[in-house]
């Protein structure tokens, strides 16, 4: 449908510079430049390295997305950008680019929420989101269970990790096993040849009195690391494949169990899984199995749409346009702790300089 909104989305909340273009729920372009290799030797994302890379990659990535989509910028109906949450300095590069682009082209600007974008991206794969949708977001940055009845206006947090993100646990265990960074894909690979029942690692927060939908991976991380160290101290060889499989099983068991329970409790018959960890083959398989058993329809976008990208931001931006949500102001700020309950940052309607006190970012702006 040619009258669906044509939107370009920009994502820079972490280490991927993403620019995507969608028409309504149709994906036209998904260009991503990653600085992950520059962070690998540090074992994690270095904010300043990420921010520098975003600045260098932005214009070429916008160009690439436009070519891929076969459109000209003048045809766009709006520009969307991740306003938060994320790394403050990294977000600011994307927000600056989006504002300048929207202003120069005379298009409305939509500052949107990174987490809501992770949910909305599934529209590009499986069509309009059912309302309500339960969403399990799992990545190096998030482990959240969210319920949304309207992705542009109502996202409710059901549960979240109380310590580490699921993806972080994968990175940590991969490091202990000397498998490199990032840990997700490599653990998945080794786990395929291992026995998931070989070692009984703990399932965090699954006791009868524990919060039903919150997660904890810190205890599991420590238990796995201790188990490996004990083996090494005893001079025994570490069964890398079995450790990877048993660790992975502990993570995905808890994630899927809680997600399915939340769907049942809330009477929701759709579950979507997003975020980088959604690329994990065992998570997909176990979720499929458990959703089928519970009569729930599972929606998981292809791996490239699960990790951070610009298409997800464009998808949510297009929905904002389609539902007539108000555009953001030119003084839109990057908000490193934008609440998950704010799917976007609507404008206040007046464009003069605000004199209210802005929340000062926790990150040192000079680092």
């Amino acid at each position, binding site marked *: 449908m040619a009258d669906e909104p044509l939107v370009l989305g920009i994502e820079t*909340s*972490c280490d991927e510079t993403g620019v995507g273009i969608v028409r309504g729920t149709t994906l036209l372009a998904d260009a991503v430049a990653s600085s992950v290799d520059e*962070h690998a030797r*540090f074992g*994690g*994302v*270095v*904010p*300043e*390295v990420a*921010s*520098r890379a975003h*600045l260098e990659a*932005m*214009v070429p990535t*916008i*160009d690439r997305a436009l070519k891929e989509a076969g459109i000209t910028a003048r045809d766009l109906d709006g520009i969307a950008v991740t306003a*938060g*949450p*994320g*790394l403050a*300095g990294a977000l*600011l*590069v994307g*927000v*600056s*680019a989006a*504002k*300048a*682009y929207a*202003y*120069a082209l005379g298009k409305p600007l939509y500052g949107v929420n*990174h*987490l809501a974008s992770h949910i909305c991206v599934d529209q590009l794969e499986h069509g309009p989101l059912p309302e309500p949708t339960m969403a399990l*977001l799992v990545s*190096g*940055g*998030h482990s*959240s269970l969210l319920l949304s009845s309207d992705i542009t206006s109502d996202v409710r*947090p059901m549960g*979240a*990790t*109380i310590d*580490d*993100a699921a993806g*972080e646990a994968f990175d940590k265990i991969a490091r202990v096993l000397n498998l490199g960074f990032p840990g997700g894909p490599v653990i998945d690979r080794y786990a395929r040849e291992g026995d998931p029942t070989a070692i009984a690692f703990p399932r965090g927060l699954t006791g009868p009195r524990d919060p039903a939908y919150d997660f904890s991976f810190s205890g599991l991380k420590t238990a796995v690391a201790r188990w490996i160290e004990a083996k090494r101290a005893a001079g025994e060889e570490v069964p890398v494949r079995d450790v990877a499989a048993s660790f992975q099983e502990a993570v995905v068991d808890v994630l899927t169990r809680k997600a399915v329970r939340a769907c049942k409790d809330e009477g929701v018959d759709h579950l979507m899984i997003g975020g980088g960890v959604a690329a994990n083959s065992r998570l997909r398989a176990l979720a499929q199995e458990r959703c089928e058993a519970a009569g729930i329809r599972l929606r998981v976008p292809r791996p490239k749409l699960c990790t951070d990208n610009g298409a997800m931001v464009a998808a949510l931006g297009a929905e904002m346009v389609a539902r007539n949500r108000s555009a953001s102001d*030119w*003084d839109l*700020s*990057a908000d490193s*702790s934008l*609440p*998950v309950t704010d799917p976007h940052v609507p404008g206040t309607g007046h*464009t003069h*300089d605000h004199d209210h006190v*802005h929340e*000062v970012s926790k990150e040192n*702006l*000079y*680092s």
Partner: protein
Amino acid sequence: MLLLALDTATPAVTVALHDGTDVVASSGQVDARRHGELLLPAVDRVLAAAGVKLDAVTGIVVGTGPGPYTGLRVGLMTADTFGLALGVPVHGVCTLDGLAYAADIEKGPFVVATDARRKEVYWATYADSRTRLTGPAVDRPADIAERVAGLPAVGAGALLYPDTFPQAHEPEHVSAAALASLAAEKLARGEEPAEPRPLYLRRPDAQVPKNYKVVTPK
């Protein structure tokens, strides 16, 4: 010629429009923590004051620092993207050169210094307002005291450390008007200003914060 100039490399968020002969309109605000919020509205105000639309601009001029990175990138990213959207060239000018130009000193040598935080200054020396002799560099004021002894100095970095720069004076902050005028002079002479790339001068702190990717509100 119609140049839009902007600089966010220092606490000043400054924008100016230059028609090749004169500064047509300008804006300057000092707020070290709100570059991202202030810049676009300032561009909008300056254009409105001049009664022109952005697409009338024939080139973008941007301060390339050195400066604290987060703020510095706001101006550079904005300039780069304006250049892309409008299909016009983006010219870089060292922020310290802009301050030297605004200082309007015919005969040097003199020093320009801005605040680099962490008890350091970004600094350069000039033979006159248009000719840089050394720098830019980043150093502790005490470590360069001998090299700048007896020289007049301008900029917030000089005013901040009177022990090293006893002859410090105005201008304190860079103005986009000065950057634009300097760039216009160069372009009129057929000279190409610098690439619009950031002068960081320091390597990134390669430190992974604890819970480095955790962004989900608890």
